């Protein structure tokens, strides 16, 4: 990058907010995936005007710009695949407004999910998507990846809560989408186009979020099944019952085994464990919903069904699910955490298929995830320094994606395409859909400067 460009960047953000120091360049090369590539420099922007000027110049000079939140993405979305300028948005971290009567919050993109959660809790409200990375991930990142979480079954994902955005387009123009109103059918839904666009269309600089009152009561239960099909049938029957659990999670056999080998939780080594939570505003209401769910558990040959009688008991039931990621993360030096998603009725088939893939490629895959919305997390464990294991991991991944598509599902329910799943885009999307996406990219970013190399948009 030419010195005059570096000087211009320093002039825009201030010398203290510009870096090309080695430690920053290494840190900005990575996200939470296995992908990495060095950027040329980084800037800590603080205003929309600065971002507009940076993009305007980068567009003129054809330099890649990579918007970055907390870098917790799991598919290389924030990795500067073509070098360029990392635009770190964490300094824009103010909650601008919370309006309870309008049921909305307006935030800057660098606000951490948990900080908004805390601010809303004071009013008895919440922003439901609740990604597991919420303590650290930014709302800008959540919007750009359409983040979801354990409550997806009942509350949907980030997309369902974004009312409007302020976005800086690659040529530096500032655009507003949506409105402050609860509903709007005014023109094309540009807001939704930007939600989940992985920083490839524009930089989100302000977010208007719909917020919900926070339910004050919950009930929790757990059931184990010797037979995967029984667990799958229980999930389907819950969907038929008319009850929508606030959480419905599943742990597969390999995950349970790994937890047992690495903790003293002593779980029964069964094919599947289901955890359910119902929520509402009175205990009677949540208990009623839970009793229906437990009836269904009992109808499907469970090995054990247990309901938490106190908050402490609920916490202990959740322990297995909550420890899954940490336990699996410690087993091998490397892992990929996938997030294939299938229609809810196919969850058991997906679990079975994953076990077959693991056996076929002789690789450890442990699965857990959100049975309530069909989103599973097969975590493939391998040694990244062993070329043979890397090959197995890659082959298993490819099979996994094919399986998800065969089961009428999708490559990714939460974590996005980024670099990791770009080669598989055409598996899911037909030629016309790919062309439409590429044309949208060209419309907003004709010079391909915003987060280039992602989502197979260049094909």
């Amino acid at each position, binding site marked *: 990058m030419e010195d005059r460009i570096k000087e211009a960047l320093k002039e825009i953000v201030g010398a203290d907010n510009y870096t090309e*120091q*080695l*430690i920053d360049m290494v840190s900005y090369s990575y996200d939470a995936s296995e992908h990495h590539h060095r950027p040329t420099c980084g800037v800590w922007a603080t205003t929309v005007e600065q971002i507009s000027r940076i993009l305007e110049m980068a567009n003129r000079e054809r330099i890649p710009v990579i918007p970055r939140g907390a*870098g917790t993405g799991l598919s290389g979305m924030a990795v500067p695949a073509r070098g360029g300028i990392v635009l770190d948005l964490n*300094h824009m971290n103010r909650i601008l407004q919370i309006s309870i009567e309008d049921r909305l919050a307006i935030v800057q993109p660098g606000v951490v999910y948990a900080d908004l959660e805390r601010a809303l809790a004071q009013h008895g409200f919440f922003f439901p998507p609740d990604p597991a990375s919420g303590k650290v991930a930014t709302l800008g990142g959540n919007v750009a990846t359409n983040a979801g979480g354990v409550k997806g079954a009942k509350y949907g994902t980030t997309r369902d809560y974004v009312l409007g955005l302020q976005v800086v387009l690659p040529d530096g123009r500032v655009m507003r989408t949506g409105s402050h109103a609860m509903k709007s059918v005014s023109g094309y839904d540009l807001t939704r186009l930007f939600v989940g666009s992985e920083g490839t269309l524009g930089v989100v600089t302000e977010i208007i979020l719909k917020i919900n009152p926070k339910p004050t009561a919950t009930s929790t239960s757990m059931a184990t099944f010797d037979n995967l099909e029984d667990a799958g049938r229980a999930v389907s029957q819950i969907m038929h019952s008319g009850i929508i659990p606030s959480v419905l999670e599943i742990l597969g056999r390999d995950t349970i085994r790994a937890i047992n080998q690495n903790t003293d939780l002593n779980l029964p080594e069964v094919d599947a464990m289901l955890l359910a939570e119902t929520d509402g505003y009175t205990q009677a209401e949540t208990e009623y919903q839970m009793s229906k769910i437990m009836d269904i558990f009992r109808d499907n040959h469970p090995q054990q069904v247990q309901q938490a009688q106190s908050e402490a008991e609920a916490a202990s039931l959740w322990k297995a699910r909550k420890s899954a990621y940490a336990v699996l*993360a410690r087993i091998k030096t490397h892992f990929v955490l996938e997030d294939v998603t299938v229609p809810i009725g196919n969850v058991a088939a997906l679990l079975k298929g994953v076990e077959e893939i693991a056996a076929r490629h002789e690789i450890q895959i442990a699965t857990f995830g959100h049975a309530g919305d069909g989103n599973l997390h097969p975590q493939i464990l391998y040694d990244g320094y062993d070329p043979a294991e890397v090959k197995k991991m890659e082959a298993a991944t490819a099979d996994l994606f094919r399986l998800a598509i065969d089961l009428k599902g999708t490559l990714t329910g939460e974590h996005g395409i980024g670099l990791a799943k770009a080669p598989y885009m055409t598996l899911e999307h037909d030629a016309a859909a790919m062309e439409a996406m590429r044309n949208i990219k060209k419309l907003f970013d004709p010079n391909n400067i915003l987060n280039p190399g992602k989502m197979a948009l260049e094909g």
Partner: protein
Amino acid sequence: MRDKYDFEIKYRDQILKCSRCGFCQAVCPVYGSTLRPACNARGKMLILKEVMDGHIDLNDELIDTLFQCTTCANCYQNCPSGVNVPEIIKQVRKDMVHIGSCHPAFTGMNEVLQAHDNIYAEDEPEDFERERNKQARYVYFIGCVGGYREDESTLATLDLLDRLSVDYTLIDEVCCSGVLEDVGFQINPRLVQLNIERILTTGAEAVITGCPYCFRTFNNKEQYAPLKEKGVSIIHISQFLKNVAMDVTTDLRVTYHDPCDLGRHCGIYEEPRGTIRKIAPNFVEMRHHHADALCCGAGGGVRGAFAKNSIAMARRRLEEAEEIEADVVLTECNSCVHNLSNAKLRKQKFKVCTTTAFINELMDER
């Protein structure tokens, strides 16, 4: 091929187990005050991974992150992969010093302790108006910060011990020198020897430390093992006070800041709270407490080497005290008191002091 660094030999597997989840970013005080991800635990582990992969080498360019760590262990506490970052950082600093890359403040600290007996190079120790090196049941070991920077706090603690008729003595103490291990050097055998001799000479059955860091050093460093071998136990003042009846109380709104060295590093959370609850029924926790407590920003050599950021970390901690409208912030570490007091803004009307100093003050007022 270069020779392997000691940090690789000892910690390669752990460093590779960092899954880059970034969870440490939420709790790292250095990140919290700089918003610079290169400085959080993930940033540090990535640097070391690239060194191991041969992409970069250890050098001065890495000092800003590898030496900017308070060793508070909040990352380790929250790390899903169990990466013990502070231990890894301490080892890397030794490797860095070995190849001649070190923050000047850290080199300075080592040089001072070669030539002097305390980290402030002060040659005139405060005598606290008390006889030293007596025969007594306990040795009260003050620590450098309590001895040379927070002497009023120490004086109050000693007054309290007198009021409680504790049979103790001070000694001609020298720096425990444990901190050298954290900043890239080795514990100083000369100083260790002096402390051990002077403690044993008193015939004491236990050393009561005012400083959680000295407490850790005496308890955990093998160089100090002779103390335990001679039957001398090491207790922190907060443990000592646990069972002592205090007939004073206050209506003030009191909170407690867990020093990293006492809390996360030693698991001592309840003894201080037990004592405080006895004297202050109006006790409230800050937003982050116990194992989640925020670091005051002073540890790991950061106060000396990165003073501005160290104060910024302390400010973040004090904001939490302000948030709960505390009148008094108590803690069990003079180093925390020192940094928090230096960071306190004029508008922040609460007081910051050690529990012992506060109790003594209540007794004075009675």
